C-alpha cells in the first residue's frame, strides 16, 4: 500500500514536470517578444546583452548668425531635431535637443573629444563661440542661460560666484545645477549642484556668417 502510494506520488511528480517544462518554455518564449515590444531596439534572442544605444541622426541647422552673437556673452537659443530608428508607422521617432550658442569674451579649446567616437572630425577646435546642448546632464531638464549672475544667486539656490566668475552663467531650475560656460579648462564646468558633468556640446561650423550645428554629443535622454 505504502509503496503503491509512493510510486503514485512519483508518477504525479513526473507528470507535473512533463507539463511544467513546456509551459515554462512557452512563457520564456513569450517574454522575449514582449520585451522587444517594449524596447524595439533589443536584438532578437539577445535580451541580456547590453542594449544597443539608439543612434540618432540629426539634421544640420543654423543655430544663429554671427551678427546675432556680436558681443561677448550674447547668446541664442535654438532647437536641434534628432531622428531615432523606431518601429513606428513612420519608421522613426524624433526628439528635440534645445541648444544655446554663446559668444565668449576669449578663445578657448572646445571640448569636442567625443567627435571621434561617432566618426567625425570637429571642423572648429578653438573658438570664442561655443554651442551647448541645453539638456541638463543631471536629470534632463532644460536649463537656462542666465545673463545676469545675480539672478543665479536669487533664484537658483543661493550660489554666489567668486569674483572671476561674476558673468553670465547657466543654471537649471530643477535641482539648481550651475554651470560656467566660459571656464578655460572645462567649458561648462559645474560650479554648484548635483550635475555630474558639464553640459554636452555641439559640433558646428561657420558657413556664410552663420553658425551651423551638425551634431550633438551622444548620451542622456532627450
Amino acid at each position: 500500500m505504502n509503496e503503491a502510494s509512493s510510486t503514485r506520488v512519483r508518477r504525479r511528480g513526473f507528470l507535473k514536470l512533463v507539463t511544467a517544462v513546456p509551459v515554462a518554455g512557452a512563457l520564456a518564449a513569450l517574454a522575449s517578444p514582449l520585451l522587444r515590444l517594449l524596447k524595439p531596439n533589443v536584438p532578437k534572442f539577445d535580451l541580456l546583452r547590453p542594449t544597443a544605444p539608439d543612434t540618432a541622426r540629426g539634421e544640420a541647422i543654423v543655430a544663429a548668425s554671427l551678427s546675432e552673437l556680436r558681443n561677448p556673452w550674447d547668446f541664442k537659443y535654438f532647437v536641434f531635431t534628432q531622428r531615432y530608428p523606431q518601429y513606428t508607422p513612420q519608421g522613426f521617432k524624433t526628439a528635440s535637443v534645445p541648444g544655446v550658442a554663446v559668444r565668449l569674451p576669449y578663445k578657448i579649446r572646445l571640448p569636442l573629444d567625443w567627435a571621434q567616437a561617432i566618426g567625425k572630425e570637429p571642423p572648429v577646435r578653438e573658438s570664442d563661440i561655443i554651442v551647448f546642448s541645453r539638456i541638463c546632464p543631471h536629470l534632463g531638464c532644460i536649463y537656462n542661460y542666465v545673463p545676469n549672475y545675480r539672478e543665479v544667486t536669487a533664484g537658483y539656490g543661493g550660489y554666489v560666484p567668486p569674483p572671476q566668475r561674476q558673468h553670465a552663467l547657466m543654471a537649471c531650475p530643477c535641482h539648481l545645477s550651475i554651470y560656467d560656460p566660459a571656464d578655460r579648462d572645462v567649458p561648462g564646468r559645474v560650479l554648484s549642484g548635483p550635475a555630474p558633468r558639464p553640459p554636452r556640446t555641439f559640433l558646428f561650423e561657420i558657413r556664410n556668417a552663420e553658425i551651423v550645428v551638425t551634431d550633438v554629443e551622444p548620451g542622456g535622454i532627450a
Partner: protein
Amino acid sequence: MWERLRDWVRERREHLNLFDETLVARQDNPMYLLGPLLYYFWLITVVTGVVLMIWYEPTTAGAYTSIERIQREVPLGWLIRGLHKYAADGVILTIILRIYRMYFLGEYKKPGELSWMLGFLGLILAMISGITGYLLIWNQRAFWAAKTVLTVPVYFDELPVIGRMGFGSMIAYIFLGGPAIGQATITRFYAIHFGISLVLLILIEVFFQRTRRKRINMSLLPIVLFLAMLVVISYILPAESGRRADPTRTPLPILSDWYFLALYQYVKYTPPLWAGLGPGLLIGYGMLVPFLDRSKGRRPLERPFFFVVGVMALLYFLAFTTLILFNIAVIEREPFIIMNLTAVILVLAFLWELRYRRRQRTAAPPPAPAAGGAAGH
C-alpha cells in the same frame, strides 16, 4: 528549505491584515480607522477614475484640453476630477499614516511581517500610480517630473558590474517608449496608472472573497463624513491643471505632488546615482525591517534604534518638504551638514540600543517591571 518557506508564508497569510479588518475592537481609535479608510478612498479613486476615462483623451495634443473640458464644461466634471485627485491623496496619506502606526507600534513583528510588506509595497505602487497619473494631465509639472524621474534609472548604468548590462537605460526606455517623452509615454503611463489600481483591486477582491472578511470595517457615519469632506474640498479647492506642458521651457521653481517634495529636495542634494540608490535603500530598509528588528518588545522605546530611525525619517520628510516649498537649498553647504548629523544621530541611537539591551539583560529575572523602567529613559 522550501517547506519552511511555505509554512512561513501560510502562517503569515492567516494573519494577514491588509485593512485592519480584524481590529474591530478598536474602532473608537482613529488610528485604527486608517485601514478601512484606505480601502474606501481607493475604491472612490478607482470608480471616479473609470468615469474620467470617458472624457479623457490620452494624446499629447488633446490631454490638457480634455482635462480642462472635464473641469469646466462636463456637468459635475470638476467633482469627479476633484474626488479622483483628493481620494488618491487620501489613499497615499492613509497608507503613510498607517505605515507609521505599524512601524511605531511594532505591528510588523511576527506574525505581521507579510501585512507590513504588502502595505509598504502598496505605498510604492500608489506613488508610482500617482506619478504616472499626473503626467496624464500633460501640464508643466507633470512633464518635468516624469522627465527627471525617468532619467534617474539611466545612472544605474554607472554601477560597477550590473551597470554594464545597460538595464538602467532600458528601464527608462521602456517607460518612455522612445528617446524622449512623447505620445508613447502618455500611452504607457495611462496603461500603468490604470493597471496598477485596477489589477490590485481585483486581486484584493479575490482575496476577500476567499477569506470572507469585511473590507470596510467602519460604521456608516465616517463613510458619509469622509465622502462629504472630499466633496467640500473639491468644491473649495478645485483640482488644478497648471500650464500646458512645454518641452522647451523648464519652470522655476518646479514642484511635484506633495508626497514627492521631500524626495525632490533630496535629489537636489545628492549626485544623480545616489538619487536613485538612496530611495532604493530606503525601500529596502522598509521591506526588510521586520527581519532586521530582532528586539522583543513592541513599544517604540523598547527598540530605541528603530524608533530613532522612524522619527528621523518623519522629520526629514517634513523638513525637506518645507525647504523645497520655500525653494531653499544651499547645495555647497547643506549635504555635508545633513550627512554628518545623520551619522551622529544613528551612532547615538545605536549606542542607546546597546545600553538598553544590556540593562535588560542584567535586569532579566523579573522581566516585566525592568522593561518598563528602562524604557522610561
